[in-house]
């Protein structure tokens, strides 16, 4: 099954001088059991798009199907379908509101009817996932945290819901390098072990190249590409037209190639890049 968007358009503040068509006739499929990345320039419509996945925003036109159910309907089936989708917002502040972190993370599970014991278990698991020590942080105020700690708490709050579709808007923004990598690895594991479908918006092309199965590129409210990372990042022109850049690894490889290193230049990730360089140097007898 999947999340399927059919001809979605969305206009902010219609019929005012500020009217803005943020999404323009978008049809995409977010396949179940995959990691899908959404990229696009600032203001391209990414956050607007994902807020349609659980009905937070209602499309001006078009329909959204979650596992085949039209979530725009007003019945219990549609409500259940909306609940399969958990969204972590771009700014964690939008999500944190309780007086302690543990209450904050408990809110979701309690709300969907988990027992107290089950809720506590989920809170602990979620906090371990984002690397916030339970004993140290559970009873602190979410408002008295550093920026990166707030993001971790916000992610934990949605994880505790154990949604089938986990949608994250810039999940690694503001995280330190180790936290960034650890979290991406854990998302990958969650996806492998539990089959959770993951959608992440990211400005980090290197992360996308390393972790995504499927990439959707937005440009001014329209989808310009929907393909695996290798395919997306081989289209230099289209990437540039969309206001984006290639992964840093790829940029370095291009520089090396331009300066005479005979590499195949198909690598988008660090591991592959290192292999290619070593191979090229071996051929030249340089190492």
């Amino acid at each position, binding site marked *: 099954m999947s999340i399927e968007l059919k001809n979605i358009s969305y206009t902010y503040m219609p019929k005012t001088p500020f009217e803005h068509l943020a999404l323009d006739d978008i049809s995409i499929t977010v396949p179940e059991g995959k990691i899908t990345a959404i990229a*696009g*320039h600032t203001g391209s419509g990414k956050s607007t798009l994902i807020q349609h996945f659980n009905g937070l925003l209602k499309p001006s036109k078009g329909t959204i199907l979650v596992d085949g159910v039209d979530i725009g309907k007003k019945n219990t089936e549609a409500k259940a379908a909306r609940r399969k989708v958990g969204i972590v917002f771009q700014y964690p502040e939008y999500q944190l509101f309780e007086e302690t972190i543990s209450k904050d993370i408990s809110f979701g599970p309690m709300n969907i009817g988990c027992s107290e014991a089950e809720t506590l278990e989920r809170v602990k698991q979620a906090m371990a996932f984002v690397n916030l020590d339970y004993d140290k942080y559970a009873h602190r105020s979410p408002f008295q945290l550093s920026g990166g700690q707030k993001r*971790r708490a916000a992610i934990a709050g949605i994880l505790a819901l154990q949604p089938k579709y986990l949608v994250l808007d810039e999940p690694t923004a503001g995280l330190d390098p180790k936290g960034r990598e650890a979290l991406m690895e854990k998302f990958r594991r969650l996806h492998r072990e539990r089959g959770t479908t993951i959608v992440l918006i990211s400005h980090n092309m290197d992360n996308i190249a390393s972790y995504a199965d499927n990439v959707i590129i937005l440009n001014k409210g329209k989808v310009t590409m929907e393909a695996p990372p290798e395919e997306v990042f081989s289209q230099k022109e289209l990437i540039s037209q969309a206001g984006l850049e290639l992964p840093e690894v790829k940029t*370095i490889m291009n520089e090396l190639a331009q300066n005479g290193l005979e590499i195949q230049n198909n690598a988008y990730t660090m591991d592959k890049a290192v292999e290619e360089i070593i191979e090229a140097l071996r051929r030249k007898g340089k190492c």
Partner: protein
Amino acid sequence: MSFIECVDLTHIYNAGMENEMLAVENVNIKIEEGEFVAILGTNGSGKSTLAKHFNGLLLPSSGKCLVDGMDTKDEEHTYDIRRQIGMVFQNPDNQIIAAIVEDDVGFGPENIGLDPHEIRRNVTAALRAVDMEEYRHFSPHHLSGGQKQRVAIAGALAMNTKCLVLDEPTAMLDPRGRHEVMDTVSRLNKERGITTVYITHFMEEAAMADRIFVMDQKHLVASGTPREIFRDIGAMKKRGLAVPMAAEMAYRLQQKGLRITESIINTEDLVRAICQ
């Protein structure tokens, strides 16, 4: 005299209460006029707390913070200090003050008493610098995440201060926007001698600074030029940090037996080492 100087600076949040939190301990730092320094450190290491002392928003629990020779604890200097330091906070949403972008950007300059003509000129220049001129009559609440961040940066630029303190200003920007902000900041530093304090989790950005400070669990644990700091990959990783991508690549190549003797922190270095 250094432009910013912290002497044994310690900061405790909620001092004396049950939820007391020691966030920064005994930090000694000197930042010279015209310098571009970056601050690195893992989440919660104390970077933002430290930076908020530079404009007197937070006051030391013990020790002191001097800006241009003025003690931030001295109330008579509060205004003078604010006039010298433009600050971009970590979360742009908390900084939105006015209902229209141009008023929001003009708020800081107005607050430090610039005259209306100058304000208008600065606001326009600042919005142009972050490529947000077309949004000047918008409500900042109706902007995308990255657009809000650009507006916050414009607000600091428009104050035309001698010093800019930027707390993760590019965290929400697309790759191009990130490069543009970096270019703007380093141009202001080079051409106008604006003292710049730049907090970031992007090692490539830190590599552009004159000097890097590393925070680790409330303490300042290292300082030096980017080459000095990024030389020791092991130490950076142990602290939960990293090195620029090109340095990481060089390191991995070395592990596979390639001999690289030069110090590598950017792509040019790597190209020189491999393609010569």
